[in-house]
C-alpha cells in the first residue's frame, strides 16, 4: 500500500493529474506546442546522455548483452500475438498499429519508473536505457510487415512498399535517433562529458519532467474525452469497451511476460522492474509518427488514445508500484 501512496506523492505524477483536472474543469491552461516539443527532446537527450555515461562507467558483459537481446526479441514478439488477437475485431490496419504501439515503449513511463526506484532507494543499471532505445524500432518494423502481409490485396497495391522508407522511419525516427545519438555521445565523453552538462541533464530533470507531465495530462485527458464522445466520422462503430479493455489487459499481460524474462535472466530488483515497465508500456510518440506515414489507413483515434489516454496513466499510477510489489514478492 505504502508504495502506491509514495508514488502518488511525487511531484511529476501530481502534475500529470493537474493537467487532467485542467481539461475536466475546462480550464484554458496549455503548454505552447513548441515548448512541449522542446521539453520532450530535452527528456530524450537527458535520458540518453545519462544512459550513455552509465554504460561508459559499467562493464558490458555477456549478461548485459543477453538482456539487450531479450528486450529486442520481446519488442518484436509482442506485436505478433497482439495483432492476431485484435485482427478478428478490428481492421487489419488498426490491429497492426496497436500491435506496433505495444511492442514499442514509452520513454516517460520508463523515466518515471527510474525516478520511483531512486525515491525508493533501489539501484538500477544504465544499460537499460540502451534496452529502451533498442526496443522502439523492431516493433515498428513488425507492425508494418504484419500489415503488408495480411492486408487485402487492393489496399496493398494502393500503398507501394519501400524497405528504405521502413528502415528510415523505424531507425532514424526523431525520438529513436535522438536517444541513440545522445547515448552514444554520453558513452564517448563519459564522466568528463557529464561534468560539463550535469546541471542541465541531472539538475533540471525532475522539474522539467513535472512541466512535461502537466502537458501530457492535458493531452491525454483531451484524447480520452474525444474518445468517449463517439461522434462523427471514422470513430463511429469503434468497439469502445474492447479498446478500453485491451488498453488495460495488454500492459498487465506484457508485464507478466517481462517478469518472466527478468526471472530467467536473473536481473536485480531495480533492473527487473525497468524491464517489466518497458515491455508493459506502449509508445505514443515514435510509433504514431511512423504509423501516420506507413499506415495512414489506421485510425490514430484508436491506437494513440489507447496508449496515451489509458495505458500511460494506468502504468504511471497503478502499474509501476504494482509491478514493483510483484517483483519483490516473486524475485
Amino acid at each position: 500500500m505504502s508504495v502506491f501512496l509514495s508514488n502518488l506523492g511525487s511531484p511529476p505524477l501530481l502534475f500529470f493529474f493537474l493537467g487532467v483536472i485542467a481539461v475536466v474543469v475546462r480550464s484554458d491552461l496549455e503548454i505552447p506546442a513548441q515548448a512541449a516539443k522542446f521539453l520532450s527532446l530535452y527528456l530524450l537527450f537527458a535520458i540518453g546522455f545519462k544512459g550513455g555515461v552509465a554504460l561508459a562507467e559499467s562493464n558490458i558483459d555477456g549478461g548485459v548483452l543477453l538482456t539487450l537481446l531479450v528486450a529486442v526479441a520481446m519488442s518484436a514478439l509482442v506485436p505478433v500475438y497482439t495483432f492476431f488477437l485484435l485482427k478478428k475485431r478490428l481492421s487489419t490496419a488498426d490491429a497492426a498499429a496497436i500491435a506496433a504501439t505495444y511492442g514499442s515503449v514509452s520513454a516517460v513511463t520508463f523515466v518515471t519508473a527510474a525516478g520511483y526506484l531512486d525515491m525508493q532507494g533501489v539501484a538500477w543499471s544504465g544499460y537499460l536505457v540502451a534496452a529502451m532505445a533498442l526496443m522502439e524500432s523492431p516493433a515498428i518494423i513488425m507492425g508494418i510487415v504484419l500489415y503488408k502481409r495480411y492486408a487485402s490485396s487492393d489496399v496493398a497495391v494502393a500503398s507501394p512498399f519501400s524497405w528504405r522508407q521502413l528502415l528510415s522511419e523505424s531507425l532514424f525516427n526523431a525520438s529513436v535517433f535522438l536517444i541513440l545519438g545522445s547515448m552514444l555521445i554520453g558513452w564517448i565523453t563519459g564522466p568528463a562529458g557529464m561534468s560539463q552538462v550535469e546541471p542541465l541533464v541531472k539538475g533540471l530533470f525532475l522539474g522539467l519532467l513535472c512541466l512535461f507531465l502537466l502537458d501530457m495530462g492535458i493531452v491525454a485527458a483531451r484524447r480520452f474525452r474525444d474518445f468517449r464522445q463517439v461522434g462523427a466520422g471514422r470513430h463511429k462503430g469503434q468497439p469502445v469497451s474492447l479498446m478500453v479493455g485491451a488498453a488495460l489487459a495488454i500492459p498487465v499481460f506484457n508485464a507478466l511476460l517481462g517478469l518472466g524474462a527478468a526471472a530467467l535472466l536473473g536481473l536485480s530488483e531495480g533492473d527487473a522492474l525497468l524491464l517489466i515497465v518497458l515491455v508493459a508500456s506502449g509508445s505514443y510518440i515514435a510509433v504514431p509518427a511512423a504509423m501516420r506515414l506507413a499506415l495512414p489507413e489506421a485510425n490514430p483515434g484508436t491506437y494513440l488514445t489507447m496508449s496515451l489516454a489509458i495505458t500511460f496513466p494506468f502504468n504511471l499510477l497503478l502499474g509501476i508500484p504494482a509491478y514493483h510489489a510483484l517483483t519483490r514478492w516473486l524475485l
Partner: protein
Amino acid sequence: MKPCKRIEIVIETPMAQTLTELLRQAGAPGFTLVPEVRGAGDRGERRADELSGDSSNCLVLIACDDQAMVDTILEAVRPLLSRSGGICLVSEAQWLRH
C-alpha cells in the same frame, strides 16, 4: 496581371514532406506552406497538440498559371488525400507579375 489558379490543400503534417515531394516532381512552380494548423473534418478534431506532430495539419497554397500543370498536380494529390484525408480547393485569381 495574369489569370491563374489558386490550389489550396489541407493535409496532415506527417504527409507534408510527401506532398511537397509530389509537387516538385509534378513540376509545380512553387508553393507556400503554413505549418501547425488545427482543424476538424470527417475524421474528427485535430488539435495540433501532440508531440509527434501527429494531430496537426498544414495548409499549402499553390499558384499556377498553366492549366495542364494544375491537372497534373490535382491528379498527383488525389490518392494522397484518399489515403490520409484532408481537402483540396481550387479557385480563380490574378497573379501580379513583377
